């Protein structure tokens, strides 16, 4: 071994804890980079493979009912490659273990032809045979949540008839990667599921023989999606078409895309922060190392070593850190990535979602961390090269100081002597101070993000479930029924209050902008499901007045008072132009409301409703559910508390994991930066501190002089970090907010307190560890020669 390399090894051994701290910070950035890039790759890989192999469609549409003959017209649209028509119907289920009725969508599996698009993936059991009767396939998410297995019985109410069915198999489908009730942003796999039955059986039950009510298309290469969509809409209009849409509006696909988009943002931003901090730390450690080895460098130069040889010697020092950092980062990235892939199973259902390590990212990590280390070491090595041997033999000139800014401004009276030392040191090395502060601030800021998400979600849920939806359950009818149906519900045991509602699909048009969505007709002075304005108070719905959510207002670029046209996509397909009466506060994105009577006048079908909000007294809850289960016209039941619980569980789990990851990274950064700063300060000021010990300062006194500077910097970094963290959380939340999910930015005191506490503990703990080195101060040496 080269003797210089031997020196390198011994130097590394002496500096192992500091070098390790740098490597750890580097590893955090790289772990985040490798984790996010690998997750993106895993999701892309799972999604693309699944979509391709199971022929996920590209255009989708729902309609009232069209004869099979319409199929040929659709297939003839230029650019259409394949057409898949089917039946999709809401059902109510009776699960023995479940008190409440569950609901779901039931799809048809074609009997006489192969499924062309959105093909099923069989997880367990069997697919449906041509001869099978009263058998269903169940989506995996629902089956898992309710512990259903092939062969288990399941009772369903189809078009008012109760059928005893048997589970034939557990399946997945590419259009239900993210499985949630239509219009709901949250999964509720316990009470909502997707099912498949033989087409003939389903058609018979719903009188849909020879007809279809759902459509999926794939496109030929080069086809124009908007043109195909326009043509589909034209063809389906007479059959009650509800508007076709592409993959970019497909609810399940949007969720997968959103997740990938967020990961992409994280895969760049986070590593950048961490690697910058690591570069700065490398610089500090190497500068100090080179200052300590001035004389050694001088001797090497005096004996004829070339500049390049010496520079390379120190660069290698940094590269060892890079290798360790990349190794740890890769390991961390894999471990966290595997955990997150597990977590994705809560939300996304793929036939296989495996952790696919992004090997490119590992190479990228190596390059990025090498670059960071080289940038860090460059300045220090430049000093080595410039040093002339004779100059290097002499000790460094004494440091010159001046009164700190605060003193020059006249605040010196209030400053203790050790605080003055700290402030003057900070001013003497402003860049070191700035970097330490920024790094600590970033560590603080990172901690704000997961809790901001948690608080935002909590706020939405509390708002949605305590302010807006005060009902106990929401019951939907199989199809629009008379107002009397609501009265029938009010006769069920324990019912305190019932409010009918009607929901219709519409297209809202303002100028050249338009949007398809549901228009909700609600009673005027609602007590249960209320429309809440921006001021948090219920909005009064005026006759013919329309209220839309702020998100919809932004999408359509309209304001209260502006006129919009409502095209009803159902029944008589009437149109009306009305002014916008106001904006509602709705975190679920786009929504629109009208007074129930006004809506019914618009529809011209008499007083009809599609469901009711019901408030039930606690004591008779079980009887209520029992009777509701036996009510055939109730197709969908949403129980607020069940929804709340299931959501708490999934979000608590996922946010909990993300919080662990972010907190550990932030702690590592805070720990690394404080520990290294303290160690470097200790090395630079060993003589000064030893002098103070000789002069009668206790270890504690000297320790506080040592960390005084860091305390000043941490005091600046904490508020700065809270501010930066709020900004980062705001940016991240804005970037993931879509039309369907609007997360508010909630920055709570407890969030700030948590971040402050973690950083304070991490810095205190690392400073204490560094201070333990004060035991090793050489008091006798302080009396002797200069450094």
């Amino acid at each position, binding site marked *: 071994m080269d003797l210089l390399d031997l020196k390198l090894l011994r130097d590394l051994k002496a500096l192992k804890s500091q070098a390790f701290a740098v490597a750890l910070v580097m590893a955090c950035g790289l772990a985040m980079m490798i984790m996010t890039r690998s997750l993106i790759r895993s999701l892309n890989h799972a999604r693309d493979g699944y979509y391709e192999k199971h022929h996920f469609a590209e255009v989708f549409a729902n309609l009232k009912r069209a004869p099979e003959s319409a199929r040929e017209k659709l297939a003839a649209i230029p650019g259409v490659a394949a057409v898949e028509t089917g039946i999709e119907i809401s059902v109510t289920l009776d699960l023995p273990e479940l008190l409440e009725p569950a609901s779901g969508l039931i799809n048809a599996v074609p009997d006489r032809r192969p499924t062309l698009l959105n093909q099923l993936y069989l997880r367990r059991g069997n697919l449906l045979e041509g001869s099978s009767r009263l058998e269903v396939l169940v989506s995996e998410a629902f089956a898992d949540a309710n512990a259903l297995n092939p062969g288990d019985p399941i009772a369903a109410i189809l078009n008012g008839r109760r059928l005893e069915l048997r589970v034939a198999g557990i399946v997945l489908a590419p259009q239900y990667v993210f499985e949630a009730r239509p219009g709901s942003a949250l999964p509720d796999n316990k009470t909502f599921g997707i099912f498949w039955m033989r087409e003939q059986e389903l058609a018979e039950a719903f009188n849909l023989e020879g007809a279809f009510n759902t459509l999926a298309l794939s496109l030929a290469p080069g086809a124009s999606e908007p043109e195909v969509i326009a043509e589909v809409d034209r063809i389906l209009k007479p059959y009650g078409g509800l508007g076709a849409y592409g993959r970019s509006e497909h609810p399940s696909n949007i969720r997968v895309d959103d997740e990938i988009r967020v990961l992409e943002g994280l895969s760049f931003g986070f590593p950048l922060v961490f690697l910058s901090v690591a570069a700065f730390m490398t610089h500090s450690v190497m500068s100090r190392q080179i200052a300590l080895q001035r004389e050694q460098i001088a001797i090497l130069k005096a004996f004829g070593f070339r500049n390049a040889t010496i520079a390379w010697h120190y660069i290698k020092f940094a590269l060892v850190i890079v290798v360790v950092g990349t190794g740890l980062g890769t390991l961390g990235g894999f471990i966290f990535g595997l955990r997150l892939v597990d977590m994705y199973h809560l939300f996304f259902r793929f036939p296989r979602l495996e952790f696919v390590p992004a090997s490119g990212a590992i190479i990228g990590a190596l390059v990025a961390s090498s670059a960071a280390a080289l940038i860090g070491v460059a300045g220090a090595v430049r000093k080595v090269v410039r040093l002339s041997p004779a100059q290097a033999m002499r000790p460094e000139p*004494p*440091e010159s100081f001046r009164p700190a800014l605060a003193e020059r401004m006249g605040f010196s009276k209030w400053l203790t*002597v050790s605080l003055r030392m700290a402030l003057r040191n900070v001013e003497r090395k402003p860049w070191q101070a700035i970097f330490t502060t920024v790094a600590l601030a970033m560590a603080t800021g990172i901690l704000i993000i997961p809790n901001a998400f948690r608080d935002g979600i909590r706020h939405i849920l509390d708002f949605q479930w305590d302010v807006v939806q005060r009902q106990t359950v929401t019951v939907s009818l199989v199809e629009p029924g008379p107002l009397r149906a609501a009265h029938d519900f009010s006769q069920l045991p324990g019912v305190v209050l019932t409010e009918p509602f009607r929901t219709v699909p519409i297209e809202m048009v303002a100028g050249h902008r338009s949007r398809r969505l549901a228009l909700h007709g609600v009673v005027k002075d609602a007590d249960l499901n209320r429309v809440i304005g921006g001021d948090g108070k219920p909005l009064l719905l005026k006759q013919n007045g329309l209220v839309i959510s702020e998100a919809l207002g932004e999408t359509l670029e309209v304001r209260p008072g502006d006129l919009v046209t409502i095209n009803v996509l159902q029944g008589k397909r009437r149109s009306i132009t009305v002014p916008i009466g106001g904006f509602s506060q709705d975190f679920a994105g786009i929504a629109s409301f009208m007074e129930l009577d006004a809506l019914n006048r618009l529809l011209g079908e008499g007083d009809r409703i599609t469901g009711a909000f019901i408030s039930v007294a606690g004591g008779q809850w079980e009887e209520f559910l029992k009777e509701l289960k036996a009510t055939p016209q109730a197709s969908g039941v949403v129980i607020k508390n069940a929804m709340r619980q299931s959501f708490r569980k999934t979000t608590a789990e996922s946010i909990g994991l993300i919080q662990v990851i972010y907190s550990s990274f932030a702690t590592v950064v805070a720990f690394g930066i404080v520990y290294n700063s303290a160690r470097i300060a200790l090395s630079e000021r060993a003589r000064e501190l030893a002098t*103070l010990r*000789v002069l*009668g300062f206790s270890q504690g006194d000297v320790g506080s002089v040592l960390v005084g500077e860091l305390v000043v910097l941490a005091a600046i970094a904490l508020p700065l970090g809270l501010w930066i963290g709020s900004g980062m959380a705001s940016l991240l939340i804005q970037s993931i907010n879509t039309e369907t999910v609007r997360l508010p930015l909630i920055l709570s005191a407890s969030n700030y307190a948590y971040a402050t506490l973690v950083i304070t503990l991490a810095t205190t703990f690392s400073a204490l560890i560094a201070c333990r080195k004060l035991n090793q101060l050489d008091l006798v040496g*302080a*009396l*002797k020669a*200069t450094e």
Partner: protein
Amino acid sequence: MVASDSSSPASPLVVARDLAKTYGSGNAAVHALRGVNLDLPKGELVVLLGASGSGKSTLLNLIGGLDNPTGGSLHYRGWDVSKADEPGLTAYRRDVVGFVFQFYNLIASLTARENIGLITEVSRDPMSPEDALELVDLTNRANHFPAQLSGGEQQRVAIARAIAKRPELLLCDEPTGALDVKTGVLVLEAIQRINREIGTLTVVITHNAILAEMADRVFTMSDGRLELARVNAKPRPVGELAW
């Protein structure tokens, strides 16, 4: 704890008996002190002469509470310094001992006044930093940082820092070792003046034999053994020494 005044005024302030210090063990053992006996009365100026490696710094370190002996005993006012623990030694250094270093060891980020203030803040009965600076004739340099002072000035600030807490014991380790003759004289004059005006027992270690003239009592050290060389009935002022 330190400094209960159990001894009579006439008894020596510092008493060492068979004081020994050995570094290392076995073949590698270095006997820095080989049984030193020493009585230092209050208020005297003592010079300790010896070549480098003779053990004089080791002795000073033990007297100053920087190190523990490996044999014998060391008492300050009857209190056993040799058996003190770390907090006890820290308190002893803080309350009893003043140190002057060969290389001044001022805190670079503090002005002359603040260097002194740093110590007076933790002392029980200090003089003001201004008074301490006046004793070394540096009132006009109070707001200068070490980098703005000459070596001699820095050493005088260091002396002011050492005596500002009114120590009973002032230990100076080669105080003029890094200075030229002219500035060295100024520093020694300051030390002598303080010894006379405040009555601090002062121990100066040096390898410069001329300094013996200024002391009340002179010891020589060689190979870890101490000998009383002479007692000056009339120590000479520093200004009269022949350099």
